[in-house]
């Protein structure tokens, strides 16, 4: 909270500075203070602060239900199935919006207005959600989560677009890394602080109940308001920078053509299957993990929230490190298989042992980070560049569809069959992902083994085929699909480009505008 205060004062200071800077900007001859000069690093650092806090509210509030699971269930007299609907309703709008987010930002609203609108959606969604709890109206809470979902994912795209726009070139990887850490920080702080907020409100109000829950969620909505303010300031600063530097408004560069779907290769479909069945065993599990740890391992609610958030905490430092390792060694399919097997092991531990869940959850955090580093870049290998936007949009869309459906299924399973069957269900999902990985390995092997080549072999191939990549500049008779297969050079570049989504440290020249396509689900 002290942190917020600090940021707020920072924000105030900056506003003054910016307003002071405006008349100065009109006078072309006068030099500006470094902090007000859009081309100066110091100014960009200030922008970065707002950029990071832009997503804080939505990340903080996304896991509000998980952090307050026992309270939500008890105060509103819900069962687990209804509770998990809160997560499903977040995912539903994003089945469509994954295709539209980039389009809306580029063509309809522009980055500034788009960001403000998405922030507003997040804000209003959370307020509706809290109001629903306050009035003990569950349907209103679902509406709130739906509205929140409309804003949340697209806001992540907007945030990345801003980052690319302001930091194209040198600092971009660091900026992505920071944004990623901020996302993790939001989730972690939420997990560990909301229980305390609730109990404080309860002692202030005099009793626990849905009123207390509503007030707690309203307080959480404060983070969204704060993020909205960041969006407004960012919009102002961006406009100002545009005027002073005569630069263009940022674009996501996302191009989505649904007809491309028919060209998707078998390998890509297998990657989709891995993506869907892997992530459904992570996020819905975290969504209802708190009660699981309390019931099975006799954890206190605070302990349960802490162990539930360890996945986020671990992935913050692990993502760049693992990303680096994957980048240096190659062999993505092998890494994905390792990650899937480790995750299976973690879920099996949770299902069939009473071992301390810190072990299993830490393993889950590591393997989940590893999978993100190894899986997402693979898409760039099997899809030609002009179809990448569609491929990623499609991947995120079906991922959200999977999350929504599985969230509902998870609630029903817990209510009817309990946690063992739930864990077995998650194991089954991971096993399906594992089958897809094995199939992917063979499909790729028969095609020549692009995906599982070691980094050294890739570098060698790249050297050998560099004349090819020059011919690619000229109009070619070959189709783009053949190109992608024959020209590993471009695939290599693209892979690096997408690694940057995950906050991995990359050579500076490898990041491009396309990185801004990342949605929340990728960043997590």
């Amino acid at each position, binding site marked *: 909270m002290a942190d917020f205060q600090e940021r707020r004062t920072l924000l105030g200071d900056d506003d003054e500075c910016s307003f002071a800077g405006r008349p100065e900007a009109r006078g072309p001859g006068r030099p500006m203070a470094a902090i007000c000069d859009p081309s100066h690093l110091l100014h960009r650092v200030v922008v970065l602060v707002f950029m990071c806090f832009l997503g804080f509210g939505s990340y903080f509030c996304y896991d509000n239900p998980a952090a307050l699971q026992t309270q939500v269930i008890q105060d509103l*007299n819900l069962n687990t199935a209804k509770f998990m609907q809160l997560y499903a309703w977040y995912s539903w709008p994003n089945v469509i919006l994954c295709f539209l987010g980039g389009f809306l930002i580029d063509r309809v609203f522009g980055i500034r207005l788009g960001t403000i609108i998405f922030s507003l959606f997040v804000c209003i969604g959370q307020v509706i959600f809290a109001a629903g709890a306050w009035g003990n109206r569950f349907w209103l809470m679902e509406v709130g989560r739906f509205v929140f979902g409309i804003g949340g994912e697209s806001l992540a795209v907007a945030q990345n677009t801003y980052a690319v726009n302001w930091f194209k070139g040198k600092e971009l990887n660091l900026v992505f890394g920071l944004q990623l850490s901020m996302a993790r920080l939001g989730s972690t702080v939420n997990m560990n602080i909301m229980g305390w907020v609730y109990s404080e409100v309860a002692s202030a109000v005099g009793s626990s109940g849905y009123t207390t829950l509503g007030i707690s969620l309203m307080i959480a909505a404060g983070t969204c308001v704060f993020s909205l303010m960041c969006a407004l300031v960012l919009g102002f600063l961006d406009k100002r920078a545009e005027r002073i530097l005569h630069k263009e408004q940022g674009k996501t560069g996302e191009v989505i053509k649904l007809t491309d779907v028919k060209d998707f290769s078998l390998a890509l479909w297998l990657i989709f299957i891995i993506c869907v069945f892997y992530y459904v065993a992570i996020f819905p599990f975290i969504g209802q993990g708190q009660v699981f740890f309390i019931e*099975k391992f006799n954890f206190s609610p605070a302990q349960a929230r802490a162990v539930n958030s360890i996945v986020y905490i671990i992935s913050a430092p692990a993502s760049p490190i693992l990303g680096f390792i994957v980048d240096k060694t190659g062999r993505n399919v092998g890494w994905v*298989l390792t990650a899937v097997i480790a995750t299976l092991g973690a879920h099996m531990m949770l299902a069939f042992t009473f071992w301390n869940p810190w072990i299993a959850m830490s393993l889950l955090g590591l393997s989940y980070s590893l999978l993100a580093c190894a899986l997402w870049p693979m898409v760039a290998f099997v899809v030609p560049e002009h179809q990448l936007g569609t491929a990623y949009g499609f991947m995120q869309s079906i991922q959200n569809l999977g999350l929504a459906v599985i969230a509902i299924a998870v609630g029903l399973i*817990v*209510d009817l*069959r309990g946690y063992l069957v739930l864990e*077995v269900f998650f194991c*089954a999902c991971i096993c399906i992902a594992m*089958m897809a990985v*094995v199939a992917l390995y063979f499909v790729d092997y028969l095609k020549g083994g692009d995906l599982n080549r070691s980094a050294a072999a890739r570098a060698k191939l790249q050297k050998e085929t560099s004349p090819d990549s020059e011919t690619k500049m000229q109009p070619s008779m070959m189709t783009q699909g053949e190109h992608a297969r024959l020209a590993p050079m471009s695939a290599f570049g693209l892979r690096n480009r997408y690694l940057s989504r995950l906050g991995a440290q990359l050579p500076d020249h490898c990041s491009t505008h396309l990185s801004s396509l990342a949605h929340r689900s990728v960043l997590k």
Partner: protein
Amino acid sequence: MAVAVKAESGRVLGILLVFLFSSCQSLFSGGDSYKREVTMQLIPNPSSPPPGGELLHARAVGGNDTLHFLFCSQGAPSLLIVHTNSSSSTVKVNWPQFVNRSTSGGLTVEPESSILYSSAVVFSRLLEYDDENNTAEATSNFFPAYELKDFSWNLMNLSHPKALLCGSAPHSSNGSLCLQLSVFGTEGRAELWPRLLHSANSSQVEVWLSGLLPRSNTSRFMLELQAVGGAYPLSKVDVRQFIDDEYAPSIFKVSQWVSSVNNSSDVLGFIQWKPVAYRRSRPSLEDATPCRHSDPQAQSGNATTASSALVKAFYTDPKVMGMNVSFGIAGDPFYNRTMFLSWTMLVGVGSPPVDSFSPMVIGILMAGLGIPIVLLLVGGVYVFIRKMRESSETSYQPIN
């Protein structure tokens, strides 16, 4: 990579084998195929309607032994189990002596030499306390306890193989406390949660409190149980962790109150329950409320024989252990939210049944782990064959 894949598949195969083994084990050992023929009847009482309560006799005849279940509503409701090594043993009741309650011997099992083990459980008191601070620590604030021997018990309602006994507090028509006894001929589970696994050697008693007006808005309840035995009463409560909660979601423990000979591992008889009660008659996860139990303590036999006619009639020198089961933990909704509480336990002879994974769980795991391995093997063989063929076809080497 091939080596890595092999090593990984080896590891997975190891896990699979362990599962295969454990599932087979559970399939064979868990399947208690012992069967009994169950008959249930009220022991006729010459004076009708019977003064003070009825006596139900359920006979479960096995191959070479018999279990007698006697369920009595004279005084506090009591259940007596007598295990005999003869399939023709009988129960004799001397009604005047039984009703009189002055001396023991009103109920005998003949031949007496055939008795292997006997045990009784008496539902003696229902305690209510005012949990103002919502801590669920029953230390003070007790209301006067409901003595179940003073309840007015209705006639038993028999529907083979179940018997239902309901009663209400004296001078009150509001609400009731009901006990439903089920006697089983085979292994199985009840329809409703907690779906305890029972064998032919156990009976199930479901206790529920319905509509009884609480004496405060923050009332919680406790049930006092007394276990009565001859030489070896039920002495200690084991709480076992169990990873399978599919029959009672979110409950990962099972408590068993066992009697053993000089602390050896042989268990003569048991009362088993899952530490959960339900606040509605259709149990569901959101209406589950955890239960806790106190440590069993030795109690005077005289008080028990005074409250239960059945114990007085059968035992000459009963050893009694008492224990409380309290419903609800701190923060749980109070009784007045639903005005209903139900709790289920098994009473039986021999070792308590041990639960095992359901075939569904085993099946999913087998398929989930098996298919990727099969896929790996088939794919590996295919790729290998293809490679062999390719290498035999291409007989030239690149120059550089």
